[in-house]
């Protein structure tokens, strides 16, 4: 999806915010830069949370790295500071970050990684399932819809996966 | 939801004193310097002209009776000074804020809009009053001798009375105050200026025509010749107890070569032979022509009497102060009304 591309752009220095000073001008830069997708239907604070988690998964962020200062995020995206605070609080609740008074918010932990062999095994079984769905006549959108609906059911039944956000705000048609 | 209460709030700010008045000085000057400078320039130029005119009149060394009509024309021109100042300086003060929308900025600042109005009106009022007073002083100095020296002209006459120092200042102040009120009521600059002119003119006409003669009870006399410089309010001629018109009296006087030279004054008639006749001179001296008769006694002979109501010239200064006084009170009331209207509702 588009989130990764955005963070990659940010990493290469093409940050948002036009003529406003780069975050780097104000001291140690955060490795990541946020971007918003206003058309995605996902609440702003959740987009920020997801971008941090995604950055963690992809290795842009490591424990000890600092998240962008609230003020800088607000200045470049023109969003409500309460939204940024809410996102950072959410990350703290999930145990991923911790705030250091007077300094900022820092990454504390990594997302639990699935071990590599397990990952390979999951990939294989998923490919098999996809082949079956394709043979049954499901197109890509159909596959995505089916998967999302089953995922939601799974959430509701199992009380949610580790650390996932509340089910009913992930708006998918 | 909780019911709305308005409890007494402990003062959050350690310094509850309001923004000091003197901060407004720069603001008022900066925003109105053109108007004030314009007034000073125009009055200054006119004052310089008057000064030289006055110097010239003094060097003549005699009373120029020709100053009569010329004086009247000049006086008419100068009469427009107070209402124009009121319209151009007074009306825009509040009207421009409202018309341009800047009141939404200025009247939501910490200074407060009622205080802002006071702090803007007061210095401007003072400035125009002083400028007008100075100009009136120059006028009095310049034309005073002409007015006082001519027995027919009265210093109390409406054409020149409000151009002297006290009254000119007062009439300018009231014009400014009218402008201020017009500005807040009408909320548009040009209509407020127009309304100022109209209202001031109305007030001036009413004062000159009706109000001024009542400042003090007028004197009544049956003397045919009134004192020099008297301001005549009315005169009635009667023959043998019956009212008779002025033209009848004039006809009677023609037989002895005299005329009613001016209201309240008898003098020699113009020579029947031609236009080179002399203007009726001071009636206190009888005509030097041979066999001349005192016109006053002649009239009495014929049973003609006169009752004239007039104000003596000596009342000039008391009248100046009376008029200046009530105009000042009116101005203060009007400006207070303007402040109150601003306070009550801005938008």
């Amino acid at each position, binding site marked *: 999806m588009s989130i990764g591309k955005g963070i990659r752009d940010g990493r290469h220095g093409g940050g948002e915010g*036009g003529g*406003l000073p780069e975050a780097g001008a104000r001291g140690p830069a955060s490795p990541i830069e946020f971007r*918003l997708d*206003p058309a995605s*239907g996902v609440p702003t604070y959740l987009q920020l949370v997801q971008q941090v988690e995604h950055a963690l998964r992809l290795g842009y962020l490591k424990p000890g790295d600092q998240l962008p200062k*609230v*003020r800088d995020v*607000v*200045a*470049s*995206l*023109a*969003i*409500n*500071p*309460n*939204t940024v605070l809410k996102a950072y609080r959410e990350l703290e609740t999930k145990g991923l970050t911790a705030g250091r008074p007077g300094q900022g918010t820092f990454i504390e932990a990594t997302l639990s990684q699935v071990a590599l062999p397990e990952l390979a095994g999951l990939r294989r079984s998923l490919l098999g399932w996809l082949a079956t769905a394709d043979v049954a006549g499901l197109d890509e959108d159909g596959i995505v819809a089916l998967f999302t609906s089953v995922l939601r059911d799974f959430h509701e039944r199992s009380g949610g996966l580790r650390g996932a956000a509340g089910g*009913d*705000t992930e*708006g998918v*048609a | *939801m*909780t*019911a*709305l*209460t*308005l*409890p007494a*709030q402990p*003062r*959050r*700010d350690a*310094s*509850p004193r*309001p*923004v000091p008045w003197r*901060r*407004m000085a*720069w*603001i008022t000057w*900066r*925003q109105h310097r053109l108007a004030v400078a314009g007034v000073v320039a125009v009055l200054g130029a006119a004052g310089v002209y008057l000064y030289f005119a006055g110097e010239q009149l003094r060097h003549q060394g005699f009373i120029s009776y020709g100053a009569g009509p010329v004086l009247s024309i000049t006086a008419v021109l100068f009469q427009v000074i107070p209402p124009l100042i009121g319209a151009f300086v007074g009306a825009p003060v509040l009207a421009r804020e409202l018309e*341009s*929308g*800047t*009141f*939404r*900025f*200025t*009247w*939501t*600042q*910490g*200074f*407060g809009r009622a205080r*802002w109005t006071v702090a803007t009106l007061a210095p401007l009022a003072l400035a125009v009053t002083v400028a007008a007073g100075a100009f009136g002083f120059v006028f009095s100095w310049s034309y005073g001798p002409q007015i006082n020296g001519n027995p027919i002209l009265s210093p109390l006459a409406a054409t020149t009375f409000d151009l002297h120092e006290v009254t000119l200042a007062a009439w300018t102040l009231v014009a400014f105050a009218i402008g201020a009120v017009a500005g807040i009521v009408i909320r548009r600059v040009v209509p407020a200026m127009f309304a100022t002119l109209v209202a001031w003119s109305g007030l001036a006409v009413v004062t000159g025509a009706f109000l001024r003669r009542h400042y003090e009870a007028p004197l009544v006399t049956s003397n045919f010749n009134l004192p020099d410089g008297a301001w005549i309010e009315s005169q009635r001629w009667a023959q043998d107890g019956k009212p008779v018109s002025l033209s009848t009296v004039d006809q009677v006087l023609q037989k002895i070569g005299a005329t009613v030279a001016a209201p309240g004054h008898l003098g020699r008639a113009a020579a029947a032979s031609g236009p080179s006749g002399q203007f009726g001179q001071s009636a206190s001296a009888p005509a030097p022509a041979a066999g001349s008769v005192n016109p006053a006694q002649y009239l009495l002979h014929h049973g003609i009497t006169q009752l004239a109501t007039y104000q003596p010239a000596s009342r000039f200064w008391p009248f100046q102060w009376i008029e200046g006084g009530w105009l000042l009170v009116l101005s203060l009331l009007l400006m207070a009304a303007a402040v109150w209207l601003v306070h*009550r*509702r*801005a*938008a």
Partner: protein
Amino acid sequence: MNIIEAAGLGKRYGSTWALRECTLAIPDGHVAALVGPNGAGKTTLLNLAVGLTAPTAGVVAVLGGTRPGSPDALDGIAFVAQDAPVYANLSVADMLHLTRNLNRHFDQGYAKARLGELGIPLTRKAGKLSGGQQAQLALTLALGRRPRLLLLDEPMASLDPLARHDFMATVMTAMADDGVSVVLSSHVLTELERVADYLVLLSGGSVQVAGEVDDLLASHRVLTGPAAEAGRYAERLGVVHARRGGAQAHLLVRTNGSTDPVPPGWESHPVSLEELTLAYLREPGAASLPGPARAERTEVSR
């Protein structure tokens, strides 16, 4: 503390009520969006809050109980009116000087730095600035006063998209730095969706919707299902607005916090702020207002 609190507030001009029976309690520390069509009463409400006009009915208090127009209220509230009025023939520096003289506190350093960042020359006459620059100037003057509440009346109406972004970035940064509360009005909701966390919807002079955006979004959903069944569920579900095709209907419902299960055969979707606002605007009789006392007035459209 409630940054703006109104009870039964009404304002009549002549024979027209521009605002009536307005009851609000906007908490501080938020960005409150005052939304509604033209003539809904947004400017009237702001004028009442800032003291430019006095109520015909009811009361309004600001900054936790202060009377609008009082010295404390004037001190703590900065107002940028529609079209950002400034004195056209004064230079920018003069406007700074003017604002400093008219207020107890004014951060001249901040204002000059900010104008420098924006590239607005101090010597230019304010009337010669572009629309975006004038708006930024007015905003800078307002923020320089370090207010506790910033009121903005349709601040972005005449700004291009970049100017709009810069304007909101300035406001939000000030909020992050100083904790100023913001109330801004607009008749274009989309630009406010990213920043507002409290919504007040005015329509025809009355408050139709008031509440935290999160609460509003959580308490409304769109149910999609067979049109034939829509009528059956209308009353029970608290439908605000219904849209029907031949076979399919979308019902925007207010769940009132209850966790009613979705009727079988129906799908439930979350709702966006814009959709919610439009739905209420189309149903003038519907309202969503906080507090148990208001429960009777909520729900139900025809």
